[in-house]
């Protein structure tokens, strides 16, 4: 759970990012121009800022200089895709650089990565009577340690990080087994079944028709 500031002047994209990040449990604030950032960072302590470069009133580079002093991680979000722009963005001190158009899952993955690097990621996860310790790689059901394999745990983490979002079997394979794993997508089904059984997640890990699985937990 992190508090994220979204600075993007294109309303649809701003809203889209906002909704998607809130889905996976982050809290988001949207602003639409550079100057509004200066005001809002006085009020809240943000864990991360998603910053467009071409902004009205004050551009992203100028905003970055100010928020860097406050030690807030920044991910640039821009349609400027040239190498020199990327280099400029990263040398100025941005933590990552995302070029439009981007996929939401990629944005989420990069957000998680930056949060992990800056030690602002979620350490534990609670769902009803289930508690998962992400640091200790342990899962508890009714405060009792459940015996799950490391592979099952990785799968669980992938589902938690992308909760409320449907993940295809292929993507789950990539997220939990690693990029180079070329396994049968049936493997995913087997592990999901085990997870559901061990943690009693039948009502939470939903099978999405023709797509894959989704860990549903609407707050």
């Amino acid at each position, binding site marked *: 759970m992190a508090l994220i500031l979204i600075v993007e002047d294109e309303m649809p994209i701003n809203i889209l990012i906002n909704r*998607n990040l809130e889905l996976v449990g982050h809290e988001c604030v949207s602003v639409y121009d550079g100057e509004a950032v200066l005001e809002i960072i006085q009020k809240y302590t943000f864990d991360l800022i998603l910053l467009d470069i071409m902004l*009205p009133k004050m551009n992203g580079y100028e905003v970055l200089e100010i928020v860097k002093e406050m030690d807030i991680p920044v991910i640039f979000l821009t349609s400027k895709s040239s190498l020199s722009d990327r280099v400029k963005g990263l040398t100025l001190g941005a933590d990552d650089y995302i070029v439009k158009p981007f996929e939401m899952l990629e944005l989420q993955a990069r957000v998680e990565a930056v949060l992990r690097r800056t030690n602002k990621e979620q350490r534990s996860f609670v769902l009803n009577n289930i508690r998962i310790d992400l640091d200790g790689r342990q899962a508890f059901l009714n405060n009792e340690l459940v015996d799950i394999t490391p592979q099952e745990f990785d799968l669980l983490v992938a589902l938690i990080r992308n909760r409320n979002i449907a993940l295809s079997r292929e993507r789950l394979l990539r997220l939990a087994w690693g990029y180079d794993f070329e396994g049968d997508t049936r493997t995913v089904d087997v592990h999901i079944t085990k997870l559901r059984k061990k943690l009693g997640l039948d009502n939470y890990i939903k099978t999405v028709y023709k797509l894959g699985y989704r860990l549903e937990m609407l707050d």
Partner: protein
Amino acid sequence: MKFRTFIATFTLFLIVFFSSLFFISVFIFNNQMNIIKERGINEHYFISSSFGKDLMAIVDRGGNLDDALEQLFNFYTEYYQKQGVFLELLSQGKIVYSNLPERSSELTSYSIESGIRKAAFHHIDDRVYFKIVGELPGTDNRFSIQYLHDISDNLKTWQKTQRILLLVGIIFTIILAASLQLILSRVFEPLDMVSTASRKIANGQYDDRIIVSGRNELAEMAGSFNNMAEEIQRRITQLAEASEQKQQFVDNLAHEIRTPLTSVYGFAEYIQKATISDEEKIFAASYIMSESQYMLNISNRLLELATLRNQLIKMKVVDVNSLFEHSQKSLAAKLAENQISLKWKIDIDSLYGDKDLLQSLLVNFTDNAIKACNPGGVIVWNAYIENGCRVLSVQDNGWGIPQNEINKLTEPFYRVDKSRNRAKGGVGLGLSICEQIAHCHNAVLSIESLPKVGTTVKLTFTSS
């Protein structure tokens, strides 16, 4: 080129110079030899005739022939030896007396015929003699006199002369080589400069020029070269600008397409993968629709621009009053919504052109003017004559445009707002289309603007 010219000139010089030296020395030598021959023949004749007469006189007086011969021989040789001339008295081809210092053992082998003298060069040891043999008159062909003129010294002098000539030749050759080099360097200097400059131009340094001096053909060539370089530089700059503009267009287009695509893809993904309510689904779908609509607009406008570019329009007389009225109708809602009033002034009745295109142009200008005005703003349409040309203008009292942005306004997708936000603008092709329409009408589009005072867009018809 320079080297070849040098070699050719130099070789030619060497051939002419040294052959003339050679001919001169040969001529001198021949001349000298002729003088020697002439003298020898004369002297031989003189000696032999006086010798013969003396001998005859002595013999007539009853003297002994052999004594007389020796006596006379010694007398003559004494006198001539001082002049480097030696004499020999021969009898039937055999030497009787001789005053040659070292006489080789060889014998004169030719026979002496009466009345005929023979001349030849004769080598004895390392000395060369000019030799004339002829009979001694009055001795019935029994005796003959051999005249030997030592010409070794003459030959030595000639050789010396030859050596001096060679030395002089070499010195002159060196001087010529140096001065030729110098002259060629000066002559070829402009050519060298041209070749250096053209090499630089080939490498992309277009601002190199040749310094032109004098008024000869080379200076003229340098001048033409400079002109050419100028022209190339101008063209290259033009090309670079055009390509930059194209790149800008592509970048802008990419941005214009990418932004709505990101939303479309994102919202579709959102509907597909997220657990969302029906209400949320409608909300996302409406964004997908509006963004698709926006992209459709872009493609339509681009198509419009492309079509206009390849179109020859049919020009007709357009009534200005009805043009303004029609245009106002299509803008009425927008004007009211933004609380902006529209006025017009007509000094000319008609224009010559395509009514629909002119209306689209007028609406486009006015659209921009509306965006630039605060509520309560005033927009004025004006049709009048300026410097003999018909002019259509749209004036507003809005925010104005910064001076340095004005000439970029007609670039496709150009936005004064650097954030390129679409909330207030269309797709950014309007003015490009307007410029194309103006172009079709042979009209010139000009924009004048003062920040905070307002903007005037003027369309000046140059052909009617």
